[in-house]
């Protein structure tokens, strides 16, 4: 992988400034130090959860669930989104229903997950999927409907239909807009998994965060937030943003005008 020095410099700068301000606030004692511990105390919390393996186990487990749940969401969500385009009446109704269901916070899904599936990984997957699938559905639906009709005409004209139309036209033509949706869906999935892990007290990053809160250990809370932030940032930087930039440059959208 090519490392962009500018990127690294920017990131380092950002973190340096952030930690500087934090330390300053801490030293000034604006807030009680139990509520806002020093960067050093957070580093200690980090060291602790790294040394006793809970952090990396937590990251591993949570990411595993997240990726599986999210991939299922993308697959199912796309299929539903496309069905909504194919069947207009269904699309119209489903688009509103999706908007309604997307309003449910993950906490609303938890009781149903426990009831329908049980207290296990599958239950967490259920919550993750339900919390992110409608985001994918809605954005697939809108993105595909926003494809300029001339592209569809051109492809149909050349014999594309059904699956080939979908693969060779719909997907690439909708991609710039789909990426926006996928980014947001990814965040919905994050929220859901953290929420579910907290509510269902199942091992994972969310659990670490909630243990931190329960034991009044703000160092641990902040450490898990930093972890969540970093993963979110890295996934975006290394995957989604890269992808977006590549597509934008192909479409001629990346000029610096």
């Amino acid at each position, binding site marked *: 992988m090519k490392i962009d020095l500018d990127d690294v410099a920017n990131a380092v700068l950002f973190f340096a400034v952030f930690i500087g301000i934090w330390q300053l606030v801490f030293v000034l004692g*604006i*807030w*009680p130090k*139990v*509520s806002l511990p020093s960067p050093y105390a957070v580093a200690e919390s980090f060291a602790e959860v790294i040394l006793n393996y809970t952090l990396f186990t937590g990251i591993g487990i949570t990411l595993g669930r997240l990726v599986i749940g999210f991939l299922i969401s993308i697959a199912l969500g796309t299929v539903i989104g496309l069905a909504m385009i194919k069947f207009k009446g269904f699309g119209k109704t489903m688009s509103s229903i999706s908007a309604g269901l997307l309003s449910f916070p993950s906490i609303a899904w*938890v*009781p149903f997950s*426990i*009831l329908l599936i*049980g*207290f296990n990984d599958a239950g967490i997957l259920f919550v993750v999927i339900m919390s992110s699938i409608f985001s994918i559905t809605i954005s697939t639906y809108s993105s595909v409907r926003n494809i300029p009709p001339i592209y569809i005409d051109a492809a149909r004209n050349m014999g594309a239909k059904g699956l080939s139309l979908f693969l060779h036209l719909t997907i690439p033509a909708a991609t710039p807009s789909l990426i926006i949706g996928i980014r947001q869906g990814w965040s919905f999935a994050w929220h859901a998994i953290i929420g579910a892990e907290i*509510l*269902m*007290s199942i091992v994972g990053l969310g659990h670490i965060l*909630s*243990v931190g*809160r*329960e*034991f*009044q*250990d*703000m160092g641990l809370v902040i450490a898990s937030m930093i972890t969540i932030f970093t993963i979110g940032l890295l996934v975006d930087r290394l995957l989604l943003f890269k992808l977006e930039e590549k597509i934008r440059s192909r479409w001629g959208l990346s000029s610096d005008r």
Partner: protein
Amino acid sequence: SNSESLFSLNDTTTRADVVRIGYFPNINHAQAVIGLGNGDFQKALGNVKVETQIFNAGPSAIEALFANQIDVTYVGSNPAINGYIKSDGESLRIIAGAASGGAVFVVRNDAEINSVDDFSGKKFSSPQLGNTQDVALRAYLLKNGYKTTENGGNVEVIPVKNADILTLMLKKEIDGAWVPEPWGAKLVKEANSRIFLDERDLWPQGKFVTAHIIVSTEYLKNHPDVVKKLLAAHVDETQWINQNKEESFKVFNAELEKLTGKTIPEDELQEAFSRMEITYDPVKESLFKSASDAFDIGFLGDVRPDISGIYDLKLLNEVLEEKGLEQIP
């Protein structure tokens, strides 16, 4: 509300003419629910204005106390211990008890649990990792020679919200749960379960603290007079409840309804109160024991914490003395 605090940040100075009290709409905060609801506390505090804040979980209450959003709060024992330890004993003090008892170990009737010998391979729930009931459950299992699965044993402890325990019991995904009242009563009534153990049976005189009043040390130092008046009101309310059981249920439910729109069915309330006690006694020893159990289980870090300084009962004892009641050692 106090939206002016938006830009005032957290001035550590506290005001003498206001006391901000936190509590939960729970039966073991009954004094607060009743006394803050019907104006008894305000009356007792005279021209010191009482502001209230409802919480539904310990961590928020402690966070709010630390952030100087409240001065005093009713809270369970573990959040108080954790808060005390995390602030190196600086930020808070326990100034009185509020409730004792009111926790039961319920098992499913068809789980084939008849004695402590039948726990192998079972799954039990507690309401929250590291909370009072969770510690009690784990300590109890340990005492009876069981290790939990994460320690290589064959009994699983699944911390899960009270509301979900009922579903899990009904779905037979768990075999039992150590819960606070009125959940014990509810599980017995609705989940085909019975009480395997009343936690009172494990404690001397059947007393163990489940709720108490904590105050920020800052506030205690600056406004002992206000705190004392509050404690007097607390003691009065406690006595009134204990002397007027039937009526207090009604008042409690009326206040609960104001706060949440819901009431607890009279029979559940009755049953719950039969296994607990409203008190101003903090039952110090039970808290020390509970903290030491928690440490043994591995919850409180590597160094056995010293919580001997967590109590400040001077004002409570003054109040008790003035009222001619027995003081707390």
